[in-house]
């Protein structure tokens, strides 16, 4: 492992240790060389490729994205994380020439983080639907705020839907829930501007 770490340092790699895990941050141009060196040193198995988005990470000053290659040896005892820092719009060379199995892993990273891998034979989205815009694991992608058009033509806008639940707004249906049995309707607090459930006719 030490010979490999020296070789990676020659390529411009910076080593970090955390809780017994070794990771090396290499410059973008050296990423394939670093992977080749790791492979030549016996780290023959590529476990995972994934992206990180440090947009909202407290105290982070470097580039916004990082892509992490998780490689280990066949005996499973030595593991190395090779990291590359990237800005938005920067691309990486594909690792499918080294491991055919990198194909799905890079497609997933592209889908979730929007990192483009140059030279990938078939770089399409992997998990999200074709018509979804954006990359869900980016920190600026909203959580559960995607307006949805249902098959029957009904359109659901989450913001107004939630407003309807909290009572500040009429919401989609205008229904706020009626009084329980045995409670006089006038005793229930009435928020201004909310729609009431229609009275039963004839009672």
């Amino acid at each position, binding site marked *: 492992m030490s010979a490999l770490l020296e070789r990676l340092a020659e390529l411009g790699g910076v080593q970090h240790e*955390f809780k017994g895990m070794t990771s090396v941050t290499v410059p973008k141009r050296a990423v394939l060389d670093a992977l080749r060196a790791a492979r030549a040193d016996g780290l023959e*198995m590529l*476990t*995972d490729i*994934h992206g990180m*988005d440090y947009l909202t990470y407290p105290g982070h000053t470097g580039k916004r994205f990082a892509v992490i290659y998780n490689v280990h040896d*066949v005996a499973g005892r030595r593991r190395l994380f090779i990291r590359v820092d990237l800005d938005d719009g920067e691309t990486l060379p594909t690792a499918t020439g080294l491991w055919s199995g990198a194909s799905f892993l890079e497609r997933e990273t592209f889908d979730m983080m929007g990192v483009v891998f140059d030279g990938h034979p078939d770089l399409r989205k*992997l998990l999200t639907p074709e018509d979804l815009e954006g990359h869900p694991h980016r920190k600026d992608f909203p*959580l559960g705020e995607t307006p949805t058009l249902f098959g029957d033509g009904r359109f659901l806008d989450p913001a107004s839907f939630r407003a309807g639940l909290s009572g500040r707004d009429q919401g989609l249906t205008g229904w706020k829930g009626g009084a329980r049995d045995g409670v006089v309707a006038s005793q229930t607090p009435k928020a201004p501007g909310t729609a009431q459930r229609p009275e039963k006719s004839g009672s």
Partner: protein
Amino acid sequence: MSKGTVVKHDTELGAFDTQHMRINVGPQHPSTHGVLRLVVDLDGERIVSLRPHVGYLHTGFEKTMENRTYQQGVTYSNRMDYVNGFAHDLAYILGVEKLIGARVPERAQRVRVILTELNRIASHLVFFGTTLLDMGALTPFFYTMREREVLQDIFESVSGVRMNYGYFRVGGLYRDVPENFEPMVRQFVKEFPDYLDQYKDLFMGNDILEARTRGVAVLTRQQALDWCLTGPSLRASGVPLDFRKAAPYSGYQDYDFDVPCYDDGDIWARMQVRMDEMHESLRIVAQAIDMLEPGPTIDPDRRISLPPRHELENSMEAVIFHFKLVTEGFHPPKGEVYVPTESARGELGYYIASDGGSMPYRVKVRAPSLANLQSLEVSSRGGLFADMVINIASFDPVLGDVDK
């Protein structure tokens, strides 16, 4: 079905053209073990190329976990692999425990190992039932489900549910196991070897099964490494990698067990590895249940685990810790961790990044089924269409694990 590539033939009987046929399989199809879509190009009955399309079950678990406290993440982890939930729980919990440095009591470790190994057996039983079902054998499904039912009763007795257990906690277990846990496990350890021998004769000793699986859909050692295969499918191709041995976690170094490995790389080997693994898992369970001593089941550190209920009545500090844990949870130090574990399908690990807050900054699941599924492209190529169905089953994909 659509028009595919035109192939020119020039034989002694004359020149003619044929066309590859493109067939869509799935996404809703009984033999795809979930919602998996395959686009297959056929030359007659032989497969020329195969492309898997996944993502139909994508639920955004990772993103959801980034917006929940660490302890709440247990609710989501086991829902990914719904056949082998304890393994996902354990992988996630181990990552968080490494991050905050929790000290897990020995009893909790033993119970975790027992449940994870029993869950591995249950998962492999589902594997055998469904794989043989794909081959046209209906009866084995009922046999394997009968055994799995006993295991489900054990899981229900400890966690209260039969699926999506959520029983492990950061620092230990949700609560101690019930009194009938030990007798139930001992009973299973006593009875299951007979059933296992029966299965060996019935399934693996079957001439029809051998004829259909020997030498079919072979993955060589080199191909398996190239396609990032892990788990039993990798061990069937001659790489004896098992993280329970290579990087022991949860006290696996205390148990005596072997790692079954075959060099054949065909469907038969992938089935045989799992058959042998059930035997090894049972050995581990038998040892662990003997080593199970009474004791605490959760880390007593008040900053990690809830104080016992009776302390809340006479200790103000206990109330404060309880309040802090329930409302915001604990705050691990900044850092990024990854703990590899061996699930029933392969290497499973959670890459967890902490920014010092009470919710993970980033959770990335390294799910074994996703990487394993890719190798269908190469293992099915040149084979018969009918063999492709067993080939999918032989990798034991769980589509929740693939799509996350």
